[in-house]
Structures are given as structure tokens and as C-alpha cells.
């Protein structure tokens, strides 16, 4: 992409997809953290099904 507005277009897409990447990372890490917390709680309560 070239032209006088290229920097604005690239910046907008970088912001957009940077936000999406951050959102996906947060959802995945939050899920891992919740799963680990659930496993700890299941072990502590004696309901661990593994």
C-alpha cells in the first residue's frame, strides 16, 4: 500500500488487529487460569474426576 494516506490506513488496521489479538490472548489466558482454579478446587473438595 502506498500513497499519502497509507500510514493512516496501516495504523488503523494495526490498532484493529492489535486489539483483536489482545482480546484473543486475554480470552485464552483467562480460560487457562479458570481451568487451573477449577482443578485446584476439585482436588481440594475430593471431586477430581481425572
Amino acid at each position: 500500500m502506498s500513497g499519502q494516506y497509507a500510514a493512516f490506513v496501516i495504523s488503523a488496521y494495526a490498532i484493529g488487529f492489535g486489539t483483536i489479538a489482545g482480546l484473543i490472548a486475554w480470552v485464552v489466558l483467562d480460560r487457562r487460569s479458570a481451568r487451573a482454579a477449577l482443578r485446584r478446587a476439585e482436588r481440594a473438595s475430593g471431586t477430581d474426576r481425572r
Partner: protein
Amino acid sequence: MSTTSSAPVPASIVNPGRFGRIADKAIPWLAGATVVAFAVGLYYALWASPEDYQQGATVRIMYVHVPSAWLAMFGYMVMTFAAIGTLVWRHPLADVSAKAAAPLGAAFTFMALATGSVWGKPMWGAWWVWDARLTSMLILFFMYLGLIALWRAIDEPSRAARVTAIVILVGVINIPIIKFSVDWWNTLHQPASVFRFDGPTIHASMLTPLLIMAVAFMLLFTTLHLTAMRTELMRRRARALRLRTARGSA
């Protein structure tokens, strides 16, 4: 929690266990469809679609700005219907849905504001103006942040669900204000050009990539929302087990 004043809910997909099983099967397919839709959408948005005769290449910013703005409002409507589900049926999945949608809505609102700002600088000559559309979107962003903070501030989930549901229903007044702000006030922001009674005013060569990107954003939202709901259900089960363990050992 009392349910004596609540209407019955059919025990189908709204059962948390069944919901989890269906979501686990659907999420990989939705994620795959999201990637495909973004690949096609970006091809059209960045290469196959023409530049605008007035805006030049900046029209390409519309293909990320407009879908993110639609998702910002859609996220709040999801929370609104979930809030009604919480207050009328008191179903636990309704609050789980609202709580999972809030960070997603906040992120899409931020994206709409930031990409709009980057478009505004070359076209309006300013990064920001206190225009009715921009200001009402900024208010939506702060409402999302406030609701996330409110959920975190109240420990007891059922109490947090009721309080946040009421605040969500009060705040939904901002959605028609955002939508119609360009008609009600003299705004620098252009009026609606897709969802109009007399049909879209955008040329098909630009409407096509816009709608493909909108589908991609909607698929992304659905994938992340279902995943975040599954996470919230796990967190609530862990909390219930911890409480049961603590009572058992007391």
C-alpha cells in the same frame, strides 16, 4: 435464591451443562469460519475494492471501523437481553452471558473510537471532535468499563447479577442515542449509509467488503463470547466447590 416470582424457563440449551457441551463442539467450527471470513474480507478490503473518489485510500479504514462500531452496540444489546433474562427468569446463564460480553464490547468500542480517530485526522483535520456520535460512543466505552468494575466489586454472584442487570437496562438508553445522534443533531460524523429505510447508499464494490468484514467480526464476537461464557462457568463452579469445601472443613 428465590424463583417464586419468575417465569419458568424451558430446560433445553439454557441448562449450563448442556450449553457447555454444545459450546465446546461449536467453538472450533466458529473459530475456523472466523479465520476464513477475515481472509476473504481482508482481501476485498485491502486489495479488491476501489479507493473512494473523495476519501482516497482512507475509505479502507471503514472496513474495520464500521463493523467494530456495530459490534460495540451489538455487545450492549446482548447484555441488555441477558439482563432481562437475569431479572425476569433469574437464569444463571443470563448473567454469565452479560458478564462475558462486557470486555468484548469494551474492546470493540475502543477499536471503533481509535480507528475512527485515525480516519478523522486526514479527513476532518482532527483526531477528535466533541461530536454527538463520538461522544455517545465514548460514553458507551465508559459504561462498559463501569459495568466490568461493578461485577468485580460485588463478591456474591447473584447480587452482582441483579445490580449489574439494573444498571445495564438503565444504560441501554445510550444505544438509540448513538444510532440516531447523526439525525437528531448537526454532527460532523456522516449519517447512516447502510441501515436506512430507503436502502444502502454505498456502492456495491464497497458494500460487499464491508458486509464480509461485518460477518467476520460477528463470527469473532460469537466465538470469543462462547469461550468467555465457558470460562465464567468454570470460575463459578470453582467458587461453589471452594465454598462447599470451606463449609465442610469448618
